[in-house]
């Protein structure tokens, strides 16, 4: 069960309140009429399926009902950060190892996957404001 930090509600919530909505940062061609069939097909149907760092769009469907982004490791299910629509990830496949070694985990300083760090008492100690 994920424990996900909603960047709009500003607190951790149970996964049940959320729904995944696929790959994040897809950009719709500005002028669809002028792109080739291949480009349009890529935009509509083709998605990345990486092993490791992936940026996904999720929606807090039973909370604030806002879409936001999650940087997640598809191999470990670890959620590395959550950020609002329109923002860029601070952790990417290119810098993930470096950032992990530096101990940088998320913008909010917490591990976001229950189970990834079972002994981590932080989640329980944190008092939501």
């Amino acid at each position, binding site marked *: 069960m994920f424990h996900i930090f909603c960047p*709009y*509600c*500003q*607190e951790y*919530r*149970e996964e*049940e*309140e959320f729904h995944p909505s696929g790959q994040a940062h897809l950009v719709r061609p500005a002028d669809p009429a002028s792109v080739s069939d291949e480009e349009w097909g890529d935009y509509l149907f083709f998605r990345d399926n990486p092993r490791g760092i992936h940026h996904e769009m999720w929606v807090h469907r*039973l*909370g*604030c*009902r*806002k879409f936001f982004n999650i940087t997640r490791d598809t191999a470990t299910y670890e959620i590395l950060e959550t950020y609002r629509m329109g923002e860029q990830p601070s952790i990417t496949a290119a810098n993930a190892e470096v950032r992990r070694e530096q101990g940088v985990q998320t913008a909010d300083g917490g591990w976001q996957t229950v189970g990834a760090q079972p002994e981590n008492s932080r989640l329980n100690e944190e*008092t*939501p404001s």
Partner: protein
Amino acid sequence: MSEARSEDNGGNAATFDTHPGADAGVTPESPLQWSRVQGRVTEEGGAAEQIRVVERPFLGHLVLRGGAITLDEAVRAELGVSLPGKPLGLVLDAEGSRSVQWVSPDEWLVIVPAGEEFELENRLRARLGDAHFAIVNVGGGQTLLELSGEKARELLMKSVTYDVHEHGLTVGKAVGTVFAKTSVVLRRPSEERFELVVRRSFADYCVRWLRDAGREYGLRVESASH
């Protein structure tokens, strides 16, 4: 049934009063009418149980959308309370019968006593004029259940995924969350009371869930007769 043409409230939209009034010959039915027929809901009052659930039907529910600054000005002028700007905020007026709740960064839920929402909507529309906003009367789609009693929090712990501990759901907080596989707006207007805003079509289901989950404590569901 009173109506307001768009010219009367600032030219934004036509509105109408969803409370037909006694002279219209229509008897409003609470979303818990079926539960009442089934004997799951009793009249208000009676012996004290450990948990008391009271339905507050027919309240005026308005959803306001738009920029916080614009809406705040209008809401303060018309309701006398400021718009909660912080996430999950819930504010009540001095009487405690009108509330404004943060729903998302550009959305607030206003709940006022039955029959006030039509005039309020018109006044807000007139005041907001050409600003970029939306007001929707959602009173027909949801109803409010009040939960009180010493075991109310324990009952919620079995029913919602949200942390209802004192440090999680503080007074003046309202959250959207999961309640018994359906959605709910869970509010904490005061120390001794919780409020559940549930979908109209799920009201009977929620009451049946509450009765079942509350059986070990003793629980009664009441609704004022109309």
